[in-house]
């Protein structure tokens, strides 16, 4: 099972089963999915509290504070994507038109913006195109892209260790696995 989405699916199945008239015992789930034993045990331990959460009375003040935290997260995210992308990288272009000019997809433009692609794997043509599209020097583009990857928006989660940025991906690998690019676009970048 791949980590995130399959865990979501497993959690959905497990949650639905718990509501059944005769839920499947936890030990059966553990036998079926030994690789997710730790997750299943954690969910089981959390379940009584999660069930209780559904029954709590409405607390308008608490909800207002939660909503404020949520809107702050949205605002930070928007500031990131509606300013940094349009300031350094796009200069008046929106992400779609920049993606078109680069023969990339919008998600790949986001990855470039967050420096999630290994600088060493970026083709010179891409740097040229970026410099031209942004009307800046190649040096400026290189300086920007050759910095460490940025954390995802709002990724200041409280943890014992410092947050780690996502590992950088090889450009060609990102192109090959992109779900938005056309075959022609993929072929173009593969040939370079």
């Amino acid at each position, binding site marked *: 099972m791949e980590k995130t989405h399959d865990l979501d*699916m497993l959690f959905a199945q497990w*949650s639905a089963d718990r509501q059944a008239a005769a839920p499947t015992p936890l030990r059966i789930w553990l036998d079926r999915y030994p690789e997710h034993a730790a997750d299943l045990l954690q969910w089981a331990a959390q379940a009584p509290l999660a069930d209780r959460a559904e029954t709590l009375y409405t607390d308008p003040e608490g909800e207002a504070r939660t909503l404020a935290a949520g809107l702050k997260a949205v605002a930070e995210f928007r500031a990131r994507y509606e300013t940094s992308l349009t300031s350094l990288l796009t200069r008046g272009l929106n992400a779609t*038109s920049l993606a078109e000019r680069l023969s990339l997809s919008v998600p790949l433009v986001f990855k470039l913006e967050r420096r999630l692609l290994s600088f060493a794997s970026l083709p010179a043509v891409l740097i040229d195109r970026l410099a031209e599209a942004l009307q800046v020097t190649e040096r400026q583009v290189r300086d920007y892209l050759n910095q460490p990857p940025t954390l995802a928006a709002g990724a200041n989660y409280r943890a014992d260790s410092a947050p780690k940025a996502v590992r950088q991906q090889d450009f060609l690998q990102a192109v090959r696995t992109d779900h938005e690019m056309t075959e022609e676009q993929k072929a173009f970048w593969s040939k370079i």
Partner: protein
Amino acid sequence: MDERQPLVPGLPRPLQTAGRCREVDVEEQICALLSVSSAELKRRAQMADRAAPGFVKEEALVYMLREKARHGDMHTAGDLAELLVKRCSPFVHKHIAAWKLRSPSHVEECAFDVFSRLMQDLFEFGPSSEFWEVRFWVCLKRRVLNCVQKYQGVDRHEFQPDPLDDGKGHQTDVMETWADTRRLTPQERMEIREALALLPDKERLTFVLWHYEEWTQEEIARHLQISDRAVRYRLERAEERLAAWRAGQS
């Protein structure tokens, strides 16, 4: 193999993971929304009455948000994200509140982390995040539980519970003496749910496996890879904390 699937005009993109599909009503809502303007989309998304015929489900909103973002309309995508956050906040609040974090700042930070993760997932277009279009509330619940469990650890670290001793500084060695094999009744299980938030993770897990899942001590020891003594110790500690909670309640 090419993982791209053909796009049919007017129809939603198929999900990227084989064998997975959106609910029929979500697909229908998406089809209807694909042809409307951004302004109309936002108007419909603002509808709050879940029973109303035009109510747009969260899964459809996630799809439309991503569709807007794919086309570079980050403004509309951001507006939809804001609407989703507004819909979610009562749910998130209740799930955090159930865990009784003692520090108000932890509560706030936990909520912020949940929503930051939500934003991160909403704007990911790969298969790892597409389940939000299938079961939005399940995905959200899992994220909230992950976050709140982490903050509970932080909270516990900062607010050390009182040591369990006899008041004279003598810790009782309960490992050999614990012999309470009684399990809670269903009614007791319901009543005590609230207090489970007061237990450290390991004690809660052991307690739930014993009282809620009705495992044997040997079974718990085997699955958690701890000794029988450790199982008894955790159960006893949990019982003591819950007894203190009961005393405070009465």
